[in-house]
């Protein structure tokens, strides 16, 4: 594959798509598929055949359009979007491409949910067909790879990533450029790249959506990373619970291999790189990098002390670069437009954009990509459309089981790595769950502790025993049988787990408890002093459930 050949594929793709007078895009990512969007697409195709419109109107199965709660979503080339579409609506939709839009199904796109977003990672989502490499190439795909292979040296690539200020999107926010240069400097006969697609946080579905909507983008990011650090083999560690993402990744890898964009002597250079999938098997701890490595090696996913860091001694004892899906998805636009361009977006220390999975008690549930530094209020109330049914906002939870609950007082806080950490939460991978007054914060803390207890790998005592004890205390508090002494003990255990656990899971397991204790102390107090749950959630029979 040469730059000219790539250009040619892109041109013929544009030409092929340009032949159609109209185009109807149907979302076929998992969210809409489970609302039967495939049958919508089939009905459209059938009606096109019936009308003899084969050469005139194209239907395309595309990735996530964002507003997952309103699926199935359909968009037409004149910028109209329809929500809640059924197969029976197909003829009407085809009629509408040449006349006025259907009022009944209209999903307005001039609202903040769409207008306030800035799409870099998701720029192709909802636009290209994830199962066709040509469509990706037609949207500048693999252009960045060709650019680094033909015009840039590996140190120059790393320099560009450093300049961009990109930080790891898996949650911890480690500077990506720094990680790359450490792996590049490490000596080893072989080096590996691992893409962490084991999106384990409950309430997070950004990575799944990126993999389903734009898998080639992730492959391209991995290829560029491999070239920069000198790796020849890569693995994508993806959750077995994401069958569609796995299928599309497999298709993408096969297509890239066939075009000579993956494999030996890529684009006629000396650079070779292979990518294979490894399926996760449902262990949250495998998001921790050393546990993930153990799992890729076919073992139980238990972490080990660091150092040595995976950058020096990782997979099979060799230097290994581990980045998250979203991190890799940011790479090709950075190379295409330059690190300086990326660094202009966001805040001083948190550059670029972040994809959030907005869910819970919020009007617009779905996937949003915003520049770093926007406030929580903008995300929840403007983009998210606020709380439904006229209820009152109570908290927004970020960072999953390792994160915290942020109360209304912090709504004007900018969303970046530092601000979230200062507020007792973390950026995490990007799950954002909105809660209203119907949620009890002690119950929520118990929910996350239950999760951490179940997911603790059992290797180190503070986490194995500590999460169990903390869960027991929270259990008794939510059964309205706790005492103020229990709360004091809970505080003590938070400190213990935070400081003595082996890995991130145990160290951050107390975060939901700490943050709710800090911001909703009166709720804890009501539970233990007045034996009363202000939200009316606790104390009923269902809390007597045995731990799994």
């Amino acid at each position, binding site marked *: 594959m040469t730059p000219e050949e790539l250009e040619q594929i892109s041109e013929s793709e544009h030409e092929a798509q340009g032949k159609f007078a109209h185009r109807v895009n149907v979302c076929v990512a998992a969210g809409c598929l489970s609302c039967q969007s495939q049958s919508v697409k089939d009905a459209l195709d059938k009606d096109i055949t019936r009308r003899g419109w084969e050469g005139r109107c194209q239907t395309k199965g595309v990735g996530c359009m964002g507003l997952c*709660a309103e699926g199935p979503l359909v968009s037409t080339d004149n910028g109209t979007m329809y929500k809640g579409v059924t197969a029976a609506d197909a003829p009407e939709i085809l009629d509408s491409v040449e006349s006025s839009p259907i009022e009944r199904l209209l999903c307005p796109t001039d609202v903040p949910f769409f207008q306030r977003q800035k799409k870099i990672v998701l720029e192709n989502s909802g636009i290209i067909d994830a199962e066709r490499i040509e469509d990706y190439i037609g949207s500048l795909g693999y252009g960045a790879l060709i650019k680094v292979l033909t015009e840039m040296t590996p140190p120059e690539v790393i320099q560009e990533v450093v300049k961009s200020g990109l930080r790891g999107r898996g949650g911890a926010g480690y500077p990506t450029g720094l990680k790359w240069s450490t792996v590049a400097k490490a000596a080893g006969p072989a080096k590996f790249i691992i893409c962490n697609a084991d999106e384990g946080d409950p309430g997070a579905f950004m990575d799944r959506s990126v993999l389903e909507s734009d898998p080639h983008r992730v492959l391209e990011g991995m290829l560029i990373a491999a070239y920069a650090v000198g790796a020849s083999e890569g693995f994508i560690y993806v959750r077995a619970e994401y069958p569609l993402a796995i299928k599309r990744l497999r298709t993408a890898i096969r297509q890239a291999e066939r075009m000579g964009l993956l494999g030996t002597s890529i684009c006629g250079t000396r650079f070779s790189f292979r990518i294979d999938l490894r*399926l996760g098997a449902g262990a949250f701890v495998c998001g921790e990098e050393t546990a993930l490595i153990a799992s890729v090696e076919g073992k139980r996913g238990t972490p080990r002390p660091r150092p040595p860091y995976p950058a020096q001694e990782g997979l099979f004892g060799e230097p290994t670069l581990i980045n998250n899906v979203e991190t890799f998805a940011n790479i090709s636009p950075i190379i295409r437009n330059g690190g300086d361009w990326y660094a202009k977006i966001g805040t001083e220390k948190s550059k670029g954009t972040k994809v959030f999975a907005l869910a819970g008690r919020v009007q617009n549930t779905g996937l949003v990509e915003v520049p770093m530094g926007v406030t929580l209020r903008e995300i929840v109330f403007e983009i998210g459309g606020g709380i439904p049914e006229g209820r009152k906002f109570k908290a927004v939870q970020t960072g999953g089981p390792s994160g915290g609950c942020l109360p209304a007082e912090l709504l004007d806080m900018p969303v970046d790595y530092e601000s979230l950490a200062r507020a007792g939460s973390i950026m995490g991978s990007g799950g954002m769950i909105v809660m209203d007054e119907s949620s009890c914060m002690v119950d929520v803390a118990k929910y996350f502790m239950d999760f951490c207890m179940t997911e603790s790998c059992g290797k180190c005592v503070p986490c194995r025993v500590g999460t169990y004890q903390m869960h027991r205390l929270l259990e008794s508090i939510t059964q309205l049988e706790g005492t103020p002494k229990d709360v004091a003990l809970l505080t003590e255990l938070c400190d213990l787990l935070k400081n003595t656990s082996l890995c991130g899971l145990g160290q951050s397991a107390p975060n939901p408890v700490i943050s709710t204790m800090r911001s909703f102390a009166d709720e804890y107090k009501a539970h233990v002093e007045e034996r009363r749950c202000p939200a009316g959630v606790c104390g009923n029979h269902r809390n007597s459930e045995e731990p799994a």
Partner: protein
Amino acid sequence: MATGALSDFAKPAPPNQDKRWRLVDATMRRLGQHPRGLIETLHTVQEAYGYLDEEALRYVATSLRVPLSRAYGVATFYHFFTLKPAGEHTCVVCMGTACYIKGAPQLLDTVKRDLGVKPGETTSDGKVSVLTARCLGSCGLAPAVVYDREVAGKVTPHGMREHLAQWKTP
């Protein structure tokens, strides 16, 4: 990473004539008959047979030259693997955060009351297995339930009761 001379090692024959063992063998071959292929191989077994039984664990362990204890350790460490056959139908209740605050616990109550089984169990007539998922990633559809691999969104206890009733009638 070679453990002993390969020539000394004779790969065991599959436990029986079932053709599905060929899929399992193919996975092991693709990964070089190496211990590091353990998880991938167990995935293939579970996909082919629905669960991992002792026979399968023994066969995979011996073929990949890992101790049975390690194969068992891996099989029980990861939630995705199951050592028991599933019922005719499966009902997976998502317990992700969004589903939790939008009523998943009530759905779980419904299942427990209607079927008399807890998550991870199968009804005594072998009809329905009830499971929980950590998060399906379908948070836009919360609360979500997977009935026999089909995701259903915005599930209510009433809707769920109706669905379960369909399965109970022979």
